[in-house]
């Protein structure tokens, strides 16, 4: 799977949880999931589980804690698929 495809799928999964919908129009690898998209921190678990389902991978709690940006998520997933 190409990096762009991984990136787009991640953004698609996070989209419904984002309170700042406008921020979804200008997503970069540096976009911070909690701050830029205004995702409630309690929703991060839902997002991690959705990523696991989408890419058929397992993300440990330690790995999940290191995900702050879209780039973090893309790199982690890219290395697992």
């Amino acid at each position, binding site marked *: 799977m190409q990096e762009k495809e991984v990136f787009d799928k991640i953004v698609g999964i996070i989209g419904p949880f984002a309170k700042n919908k406008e921020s979804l129009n200008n997503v970069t690898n540096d976009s911070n999931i909690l701050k830029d998209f205004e995702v409630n921190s*309690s929703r991060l678990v839902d997002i991690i*589980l959705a990523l696991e389902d989408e890419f058929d991978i397992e993300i440990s*709690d330690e790995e999940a804690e290191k995900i702050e940006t879209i780039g973090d998520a893309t790199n982690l997933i890219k290395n697992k698929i």
Partner: protein
Amino acid sequence: MENEVTVSKMAATQEEIKQILEKIPQQKPFRFIEKILELDDNHILSSYRYKKDEYFYEGHFPGNPVTPGVIMIETMAQAGLVALGIYLLMKEGIVSDALMLFSDCEIEFSNMIKPEEQITVYAEKIFFRRGKLKAKVEIRKENGVIAAEGVMSGVLQ
């Protein structure tokens, strides 16, 4: 079958249920769980009888008491998030005074609950991970009809 493996769900003991009921922090007049009828790693079934003199009936509504939707949600949360959460922590060997705080829900209401009805709450775990418990929940009237159902989550704080 010779090689068949039987996987049985370990249900909570009566002693564990007693401990959980003691650990649930919500108390009168904001306690809506009396009995835990079934409990294991994946589900809980509890009951509660709304008293005639619950504080909210006086205003909701004067002369026509109906259990508020928010109280029905709280009743489901005390079973499906708080009690089930305490049990899951116990099973992981974690002794904690952390509170399970409500984080989100999507609930649909279909029937009213009147004073003095004995309701049951059934909740089934969807996941319990990184301190977040998400469960499918439903609350049934005394006659067995569903009054509300949906999905809710809580986070350990």
